[in-house]
C-alpha cells in the first residue's frame, strides 16, 4: 500500500465521518435556536471540547510545533499568549455574555443600545475577523493537502481550497450549530489522541527526560544553546522587540473577542455551563500546547531541519507529520506510513472543523444582526426566514472565502491569524468590556470603539512593512510603509479603548443607562436569560 493511498483513504474517512455527523444533526435542526446555538443543549464538557476544536487550528497544531522545530524557544512564546488569553474569556466575558445575549456578539450591545448602528458595526467586525482567519485556514489547507499527498502542484492546492470551501458550506448550511459543534468535538478528540500518541512515542526515545530531549534538539538543530533561549526568531533591534510585545498583546487580548469563540458560549443551557466549558477548554488547550512543546523539540531533535530540509522549506508546517513518520519507524516502514497518514488526517480534520466554526459565526451575524436587526428593523421576521437567510449567508461567505483564498496564497498564514487576533482585540474586546462594566457606555461609544479599532488595526497593517517596502512584503517593489511594526496591536488596542471612551463621554444616552441596570442583573444572575430549547 502506498503512502498516498493510505493518506487519501484516511482523508476520505474524515470527510465521510463529518458529512455523516452533519446529516444526522440536520434532522434535529428546526428552530433558529437550533441553527444558531444548537438548541443551547450541549453540556459544559461537550462545549469545552468544541471550544478546543474551534481554537486549536492548523496554525497551532502544525504552526507552533513547526515554529519550535525551526526556531526553538521562540515558537513556544506564541502558545503561551494563546493560553493565558483564556483567562480573559473566563473571568470577564464567557458567563456574562451567555446571560446577556442570544445568538451573536452584537446581542449584548443591542440589549441596551440603538439596534441598527451597533448591530451593523459588530457585524462588520465579525465578518472581517472571520474572513482573515478563514483565509489563513484555507490557504493552509491548500498547501498542506498538496504536501501530504506528495504532489507539489498549484492545481491541487486550488482544488483543495475549493473542496474545503464546499465542505464548510455544507457543514454550516445543513448541520447548523449542532452539526458544527459535533464536528468540532470529534476533531478535538482526534487531535488530542493523535498528539498524545506522538508525544509519548517521542518522549520514550529520550527516556522521558525533558532535559535530554532539549539537549538533543539543541545539538541536532545546529544552533546549540541559542536554540533553547529566547531571541532566535524575535530577537533583534529595538523595533523588533516592540513588534514582539505588540504581538504578545494581540494574542492575549484577542481570544475573548473572536466571534466564533464568543458564539460557542451560547450553546450551553446556563452561565455555569459556559464557565465549565471554558475550564475544560483551558485544560485541553493547555495540555495540547504542552504536547506541541514536545512535538516541536522532538522534531528538532529527530528530523533534519537544515535550510534545505523539507521541514524548513514548508516553514515548519510538516514538522509534526514527519515527526510522526519518524517515531513510527521511519520513512518506508509500515508504522511510519500509518502514523504519517493518521496525523495528516487529524490535521485535515482540524482545518475542516475550524473553517466551519468561522463560517457559522459570520453567517449568524449577517442573518441575525444585519438582516433581522438592521434591514427588517420593525417588521417581524419568522424563524424560518431568518434561518434561510443564515444559510444563504453561509453560502455567500463560503463563496467569497474561496474566491479570496486563491490569490491569498501569497500571504503568510501566521500573519493572517495574528491580524485576526489584533482586529478582535482592538475592535471587539473594548466594546464587550465597556458594555459590561461601564454604565455610561452608549451607542456612539460602541460604534466608535468598533470602527476605530477595526480601522486602526487594518490601516496600520496596510501602512506596515507587511504590505510594502521590504523584501518579504506583499508588494516588495513599492514602499508606502510609514508604520514600522508588522503587528498593530500595541497602538490599535489602546486606540479602540480610547475611541470607546471618547464616543461615550461626548454623547448622552439615558436609555442605555436605564437598560444597563437590566443588563447587569441579567448578566450576573441569569435572570431572564435565554434557556435551553425544550425538545
Amino acid at each position, binding site marked *: 500500500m502506498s503512502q498516498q493511498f493510505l493518506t487519501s483513504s484516511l482523508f476520505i474517512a474524515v470527510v465521510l465521518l463529518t458529512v455523516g455527523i452533519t446529516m444526522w444533526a440536520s434532522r434535529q435542526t428546526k428552530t433558529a435556536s437550533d441553527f444558531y446555538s444548537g438548541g443551547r443543549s450541549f453540556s459544559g464538557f461537550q462545549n469545552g471540547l468544541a471550544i478546543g476544536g474551534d481554537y486549536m487550528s492548523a496554525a497551532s497544531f502544525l504552526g507552533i510545533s513547526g515554529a519550535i522545530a525551526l526556531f526553538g524557544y521562540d515558537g513556544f512564546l506564541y502558545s503561551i499568549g494563546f493560553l493565558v488569553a483564556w483567562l480573559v474569556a473566563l*473571568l470577564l466575558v464567557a458567563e456574562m455574555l451567555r446571560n446577556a445575549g442570544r445568538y451573536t456578539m452584537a446581542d449584548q450591545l443591542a440589549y441596551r443600545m440603538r439596534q441598527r448602528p451597533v448591530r451593523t458595526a459588530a457585524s462588520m467586525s465579525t465578518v472581517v475577523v472571520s474572513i482573515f482567519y478563514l483565509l489563513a485556514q484555507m490557504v493552509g489547507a491548500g498547501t498542506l493537502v498538496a504536501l501530504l499527498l506528495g504532489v507539489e502542484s498549484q492545481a491541487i492546492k486550488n482544488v483543495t481550497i475549493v473542496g474545503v470551501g464546499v465542505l464548510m458550506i455544507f457543514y454550516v448550511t445543513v448541520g447548523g450549530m449542532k452539526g458544527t459543534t459535533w464536528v468540532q468535538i470529534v476533531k478535538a478528540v482526534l487531535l488530542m489522541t493523535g498528539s498524545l500518541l506522538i508525544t509519548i512515542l517521542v518522549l520514550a526515545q529520550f527516556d522521558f527526560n525533558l532535559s535530554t530531549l532539549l539537549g538533543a534538539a539543541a545539538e541536532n538543530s545546529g544552533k546549540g544553546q541559542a536554540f533553547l533561549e529566547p531571541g532566535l526568531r524575535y530577537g533583534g533591534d529595538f523595533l523588533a522587540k516592540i513588534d514582539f510585545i505588540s504581538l504578545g498583546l494581540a494574542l492575549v487580548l484577542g481570544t475573548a473577542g473572536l466571534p466564533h469563540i464568543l458564539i460557542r458560549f451560547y450553546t450551553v443551557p446556563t452561565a455555569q455551563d459556559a464557565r465549565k466549558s471554558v475550564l475544560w477548554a483551558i485544560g485541553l488547550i493547555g495540555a495540547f500546547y504542552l504536547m506541541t512543546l514536545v512535538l516541536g523539540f522532538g522534531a528538532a531533535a529527530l528530523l533534519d531541519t537544515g535550510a534545505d530540509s523539507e521541514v524548513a522549506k514548508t516553514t515548519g508546517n510538516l514538522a509534526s507529520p514527519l515527526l510522526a513518520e519518524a517515531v513510527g519507524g521511519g520513512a518506508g516502514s509500515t508504522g511510519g506510513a500509518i502514523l504519517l497518514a493518521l496525523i495528516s488526517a487529524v490535521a485535515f480534520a482540524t482545518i475542516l472543523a475550524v473553517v466551519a466554526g468561522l463560517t457559522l459565526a459570520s453567517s449568524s451575524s449577517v442573518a441575525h444582526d444585519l438582516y433581522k436587526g438592521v434591514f427588517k428593523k420593525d417588521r417581524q421576521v419568522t424563524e424560518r426566514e431568518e434561518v434561510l437567510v443564515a444559510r444563504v449567508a453561509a453560502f455567500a461567505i463560503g463563496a467569497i472565502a474561496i474566491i479570496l483564498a486563491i490569490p491569498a496564497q501569497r500571504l503568510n498564514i501566521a500573519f493572517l491569524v495574528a491580524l485576526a487576533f489584533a482586529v478582535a482585540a482592538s475592535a471587539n474586546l473594548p466594546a464587550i468590556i465597556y458594555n459590561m462594566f461601564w454604565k455610561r457606555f452608549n451607542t456612539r461609544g460602541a460604534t466608535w470603539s468598533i470602527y476605530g479599532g477595526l480601522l486602526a488595526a487594518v490601516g496600520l497593517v496596510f501602512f506596515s512593512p507587511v504590505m510594502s517596502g521590504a523584501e518579504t512584503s506583499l508588494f516588495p517593489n513599492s514602499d508606502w510603509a510609514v508604520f514600522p511594526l508588522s503587528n498593530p496591536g500595541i497602538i490599535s488596542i489602546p486606540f479602540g479603548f480610547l475611541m470607546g471612551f471618547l464616543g461615550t463621554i461626548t454623547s448622552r444616552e439615558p436609555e442605555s443607562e436605564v437598560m444597563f441596570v437590566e443588563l*447587569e442583573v441579567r448578566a*450576573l444572575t441569569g435572570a431572564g436569560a435565554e434557556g435551553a430549547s425544550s425538545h
Partner: protein
Amino acid sequence: MAENYRTTDERTAHATYERMHATKEFHELRRRYRGFAIPWTVAFLVWYLTYVVLSTWATDFMNTKLVGNINIALVFGLLQFVTTFLIAWLYAKHSAKHLDPLANQLKSEFDTGAHS
C-alpha cells in the same frame, strides 16, 4: 432601545430588574464578582507582560541554566501554564462557593416573581 417599543410585559420585567438591582444581595453578588475578577485580571496580565518583556530584554537572565538543559526561560514559560491553570481553578472554586448560590437565589426569586 427606545422605551416606546416596549410591551407591558417588558415594562413589568424592567421594574423587577430595577428592584433586584437595588437589593443588598445583588450588591453583594457584584462586589464578590468584581472583587475577584478585576484584581486577578490585572495580576495575570502584569505577570504575562513581565514574561514577554523579560523574554525580549532580559535574555541573559532568562538564559541562566537551572538543571541540565532547562533554563529560566523554559521554567518561566511553564510557570505561565501553571498560573493559568491555578487562576482558573481558583475562580471555579470562588464562583461555586461565593457567586452561584447568591446568583441562583436571585434568579429563582425573579422566576417566581418574589420581587414583583
